[in-house]
């Protein structure tokens, strides 16, 4: 015969275990969904705002369009570059994104390497969760490169890394093994817009 108080204590323990499990599961879901939907559209930088031109990809038309935005920008070139791309990612991670990125997509850092080379370091989730296709990947790359080169003077080439390492492609198509020439990407964006 199992004593009553033991049964009660074990039942309480089981209840606590199940409750904690449910709570952890619930919080896990909140953290994951929070990464996608609670990301600030504008970077959390204080100070005066500046008008910049973000080159935003639109899946429905398959183009990259210039969009004017006012965002607070620091003085340093590297910090400006990072804040600029954070603002662009904010657009893509928003619920009404014209070019949705996968959950957890982040830009880890931007490095400006003289002369004229910018290195964008994306996190693994950015590439791993990116939709696969020639155009959809090219839109992402063109948007990142064009937004950077159009707003940070002196950048002529851009290299994209994933988690600090070179990767062959973004999601099976867009080449990440080489450098993106600013003028070539500028022509590509114009070519897309021309409706060819």
């Amino acid at each position, binding site marked *: 015969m*199992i*004593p009553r*108080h*033991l049964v009660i204590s*074990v039942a309480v*323990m*089981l209840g606590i*275990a199940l409750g904690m*499990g449910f709570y952890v599961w619930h919080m896990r879901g909140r953290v994951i969904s929070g990464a996608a939907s609670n990301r600030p559209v504008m970077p959390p930088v204080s100070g005066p705002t500046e008008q910049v031109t973000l080159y935003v990809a639109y*899946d429905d038309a*398959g183009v990259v369009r210039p969009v004017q935005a006012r965002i607070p920008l620091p003085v340093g070139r590297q910090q400006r570059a990072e804040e600029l791309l954070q603002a662009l990612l904010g657009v893509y991670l928003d619920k009404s994104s014209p070019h949705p990125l996968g959950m957890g997509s982040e830009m880890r850092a931007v490095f400006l390497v003289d002369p004229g080379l910018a290195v964008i370091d994306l996190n693994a989730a950015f590439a791993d969760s990116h*939709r*696969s*296709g*020639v*155009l*959809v990947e*090219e839109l992402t*790359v063109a948007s990142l490169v064009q937004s950077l080169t159009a707003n940070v003077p002196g950048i002529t*080439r851009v290299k994209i890394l994933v988690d600090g390492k070179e990767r*062959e*492609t973004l999601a*099976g*198509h*867009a*080449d990440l*093994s*080489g*450098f*993106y*020439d600013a003028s*070539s990407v500028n*022509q*590509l964006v114009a*070519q*897309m817009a021309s409706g*060819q």
Partner: protein
Amino acid sequence: MPWTSYSGRQRRARHSQLHLYSGIFVLLAAGSTLLLLGVPDEKHLSVYSNAANYSLPVTERNGSDYVGLLELFEPLGTVTSKTGGGGHWKFRYYEVESEFTAGKTRVKVRGKEFDLPANFLLENGRGLVPLASLETLLPRILGGPVTFHSSALRLFIGNVAVHFTAQMSKTDSTKLVMDFTSPVNPAISTEPGKIRMVFAHEPLVAPGTQSLTFDSKTIPSASYEERNGAAEIVIASSVPLLATFANDGRTIVLGPPPATAAQTPQPNQPAPQASAPPQMLASTGPAAIRSRQIVIDPSHGGEERGAVLSDQLVEKDITLAFARRLRLELATRGITALLLRDADNTLSLDQRAATTNAIHPALYICLHAASQGNGVRLYAPLLSGPGENRGPFLDWNSAQAGFLPNSQVVQAALAAELQNRRVPVRSLTAALRPLNNVSAAALAVEIAPPGDDASQLDSPSYQQLIAGALAAGITAARERIEAGQ
């Protein structure tokens, strides 16, 4: 009654119960953790029979591998089972009755008793027998021969084995001809110095010896191996090889691409490395497209499936289907086309470029498929600079530079043909490897569905429409390039 009045025996019992419930609590926590972290991959048993070829999960119990008897027999015919008292389990396959007892080795089949090498297990009405018993148990139930390759987890029911022979071609000493007794469709992958064919669904068995040698400098040897429920043939080679299928999949011919074959390998020539050759010999320049082949590259393949287009469609299958149709369409126009892969095999981007450059084709065309948008998108190479060309050597990353004008001619011709057939088309540039590594006119074609339904990519009529337009465009490009020269 206050708990302090428990006797020593009662306290021990209470402690045991406490340990029991604590154990349950720990198990619950561990179980939850396992659920969150996922479970490791399962072992599988491959079964080959005249009725079906299939695989089953292998369950480990008490240090032995087990398989479910019902799952094993269900694809073979009518089976029933009945659980009785005392762990008694009756199994019936057509008219053959067998009796098992949980936790016992003794079984009775067709009225005759014998022992299994390990205990029979019964879990939720599911009878589990040790893998080691299959070769003795199954012939008694099936009444026919069964062969079990235990180390490779491959079970052959009846005389289903597929045999093969491999010998160098009598007409071309650089080609290895492999003849199989039934059609095969292996997954083919290439590595530096070797080509690997994995037969996951075919009951392939070893030839007389597991190691074969050939009197050829191009293909000196081949070996056969079985593991993880599959058979593998690995062929050593001193040059990149192409696999072509013939005789309804009963023959595989392995040999160098045509241009490489023409250059007989020298004894001291090192085996080419498939990974990232930094530079390559320049070709003699663009020649007339009419006199040379078209290389069609169905993108992705093997382990690299490409984009997931729908629940049932992946990019690698669609590109291969389009490539085969395009080859056929070109053949009807008198243009010879070579597919870089004609099966579900893995090729790296460098291998695709190296093989193409070895052929010196008139045109390289790589096919992609996408679910986004509609119609066809044509991509000319997007170059990021002239590259560092030195004398007869071209920079690997910009080998395309000298051929870009011809690539654009082909792009314009294909766009015109697609527009003529009212297929929505866009012409763009893309940094898409291996376009920039190809020393020939090169173009990428991304085929999207005609509307919102990605399953239309698998439609024969849509594939035919696109393949016909592309073939007509290639024919027109040939005329334009010839006129320009």
